[in-house]
């Protein structure tokens, strides 16, 4: 509940309210009084506080405790969700902003400590996980960005090179390279694709989907096993509201968990419980450099939601946390956990077995179908809504897409659709062609062992 009081009362009897009220006001006065008198960090009670967490008066920390508190949240998220294990190679998505800067710093620190342990250990049994950094350069979508982007990239290079040892590979990839394999100029194709969209919000969202595809591409081509995003509480709160507003209530719970394995390379969000305000504070406390990139602020629906959440946050500092906590009570999907495989010491038969069942928690068939554009799970009961039937479609091909993408990204006119689809990057086209993407291949894997070779009777 949104109740800010630390005690809760389940009975309806009025007597309890009264006594509690008196008791609570007494203790609150005491605590407040003592803290103010001593002016000490609320955690270690020895140093002077330099900053506030979002709890306001009640969470004044000294620099070390503040940092440890934040790092602690990160570490707990990583451990509890098995996000990073020794043989992993993790790709940190870096945008230059404060959240990704803190993310990079924390991942580095974790790697650094692991390295020291490794160096100090005798048997060298636990290898250190690898870390790479990816920056997706979206300057081609933004006409006045070219000079600023050069400087930004330089800054990013120096940040990453300073975070060694252990050294980290940096990938600076223009977003249009998602179209790599085709002949026509990639920038042109991207421009054509974006121009085909009439809706501002649709454009912004499509770019976000392309960005994820870029990260996936870099990760899979370079042997990375995890993509790490710096999405913080504030970003996720905005996503909760904007997904609601776009009619994506069904798939919302898939996007806001710690782990998202519907992608080829699982995506993890270790900063999910860290508010942007605290991350900003940490950057200024620790002198962590933030790189300004010329991607403009959001407009359209995303911008509206952003300002709305800001207004709410001003009215009550814990509103973002409440929003994320509420959304956290929605039921996640089976792919919102780390698939249980990957150890190379495991025999291949076991691995195959795990691969078949890895994405499911209880052995039931995973039969989600996904939107071609945004990869969100489609609600089955309105199976007709996964077809483009909002406008009558004479075309024989159906494109599995969620209602939001159908409205704001896909063209309404079926004849335009014929021209539009080939503009999409390859992974989306593949998803569009095979409506139930996961279904056919995972089904086949399930029965792989029982299929006889060609020429014999097959199931």
């Amino acid at each position: 509940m949104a109740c800010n009081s630390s005690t809760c009362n389940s009975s309806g009897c009025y007597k309890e309210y009264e006594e509690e009220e008196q008791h609570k006001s007494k203790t609150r006065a005491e605590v407040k009084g003592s803290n103010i008198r001593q002016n000490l960090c609320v955690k270690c009670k020895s140093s002077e506080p330099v900053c506030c967490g979002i709890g306001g008066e009640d969470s004044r920390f000294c620099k070390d405790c503040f940092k440890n508190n934040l790092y602690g949240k990160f570490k707990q998220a990583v451990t509890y969700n098995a996000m990073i294990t020794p043989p992993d190679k993790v790709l940190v998505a870096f945008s230059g902003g404060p959240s990704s800067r803190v993310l990079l710093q924390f991942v580095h620190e974790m790697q650094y400590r692991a390295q020291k342990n490794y160096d100090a250990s005798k048997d060298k049994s636990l290898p250190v996980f690898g870390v790479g950094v990816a920056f997706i350069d979206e300057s081609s979508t933004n006409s006045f960005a070219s000079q600023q982007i050069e400087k930004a990239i330089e800054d990013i290079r120096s940040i990453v090179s300073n975070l060694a040892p252990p050294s980290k590979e940096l990938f600076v990839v223009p977003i249009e390279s998602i179209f790599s394999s085709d002949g026509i100029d990639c920038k042109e194709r991207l421009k054509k694709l974006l121009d085909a969209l009439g809706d501002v919000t649709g454009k912004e969202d499509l770019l976000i989907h392309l960005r994820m595809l870029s990260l996936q591409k870099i990760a899979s081509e370079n042997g990375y096993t995890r993509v790490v995003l710096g999405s913080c509480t504030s970003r996720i709160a905005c996503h909760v509201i904007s997904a609601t507003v776009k009619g994506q209530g069904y798939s919302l719970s898939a996007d806001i968990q710690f782990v998202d394995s519907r992608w080829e390379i699982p995506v993890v969000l270790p900063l999910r419980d860290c508010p942007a305000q605290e991350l900003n504070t940490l950057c200024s406390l620790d002198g962590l450099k933030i790189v300004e990139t010329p991607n403009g602020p959001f407009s359209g629906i995303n911008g509206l939601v952003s300002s709305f959440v800001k207004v709410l946050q001003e009215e009550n500092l814990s509103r973002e946390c409440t929003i994320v906590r509420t959304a956290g009570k929605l039921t996640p999907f089976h792919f919102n956990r780390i698939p249980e495989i990957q150890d190379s010491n495991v025999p291949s038969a076991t691995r195959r077995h795990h691969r078949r069942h890895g994405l499911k928690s209880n052995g039931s068939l995973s039969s989600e179908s996904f939107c071609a554009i945004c990869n969100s799970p489609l609600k089955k009961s309105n199976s007709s809504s996964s077809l483009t039937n909002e406008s009558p479609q004479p075309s024989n091909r159906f494109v599995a897409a969620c209602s939001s993408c159908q409205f704001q990204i896909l063209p309404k006119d079926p004849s335009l659709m014929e021209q539009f689809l080939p503009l999409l990057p390859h992974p989306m086209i593949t998803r569009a062609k095979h409506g139930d993407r996961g279904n056919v291949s995972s089904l086949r894997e399930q029965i792989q062992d029982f299929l006889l070779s060609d020429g014999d009777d097959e199931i």
Partner: protein
Amino acid sequence: MEADTKSKKPGARLCCACNQRRAALKRPKTLEQICRECFYAVFEEEIHQVILENKLFKHGERIAIGASGGKDSTVLAYVLSELNRRHNYGLDLFLLSVDEGITGYRDDSLETVKRNELQYGLPLKIVSYKDLYGWTMDEIVKMIGLKNNCTFCGVFRRQALDRGAALLKVDKVATGHNADDIAETVLLNILRGDIARLSRCTSIITGEDGPIPRCKPFKYTYEKEIFSTYAYFKKLDYFSTECIYSPNAYRGFAREFIKDLERIRPRAILDIIKSGEDFRIATSTKMPEQGTCERCGYISSQKWCKACVLLEGLNRGLPKLGIGRNQGLNSDAKKDVKEDGRTKSIESKQCGSLEF
């Protein structure tokens, strides 16, 4: 409304539905150009379809329409009696009004309802807070101030409606909650962490397992369509002032946002409702256990129903009683009766986010 509703344009557009008459307005829901007659027709037909598809009424039922005199309930009364006649629903319709005792507001709007009684030929029953609880809202506000008054009003009104419905011996209560209201409620419940309410608030019928179920025929109807088009064009008699005690309601945030949203993308209101219906919420979180209040016998999930708790507070001079720290759910969903469109009552009076 759009500026070009009534202006004469050279080469004026034709109605997109009949292609004969000149388009008089742009439909807020779809932005289509449409003439008045076709607009009335499609407006009424959509509501008729909602009633059919969701099986809101059965032939021969007695239905009380929660009537405040505001635009939503006035239009609801008008449309329901029209459709009842036109499509032979066979319903016995009544107007049920609640008098909270707010001078300069409720007494005026009640006059409107009394006029509606004559205009539509629907029998009217008025229940008042004074009779039921011994307190008017004016007296309550004098005692508790302007912070949590919407809580009291909402809780009391809910029970008042049920008691009035029982007196009228009706089978169902229909309220004028429109799409904007429900969208606001979905957002509010997200903002305030009320996952249980979130799972129920988009239902078009609620309280089916209780004494008197309620339904919202206007669930998919835009407030703008009710207000500046239907009521305006048909010159229906309604009352349109904001409740004088409401300016601080938290619902105002959500309302502002939705108004801005509607400007950019009108269908977003229905999308919010769709999201609300689609949220994956475990059924175990849905219903609190339902018992009865020890003091008054009304349905309650606690020992005392919320109204009794609040009343106790008032009578003992403890204005904060029942406000602010109740974690448990109280009675079942306390949905507001739709008063006039401007009442910004707090949907959930339980739990302490009344921190303004």
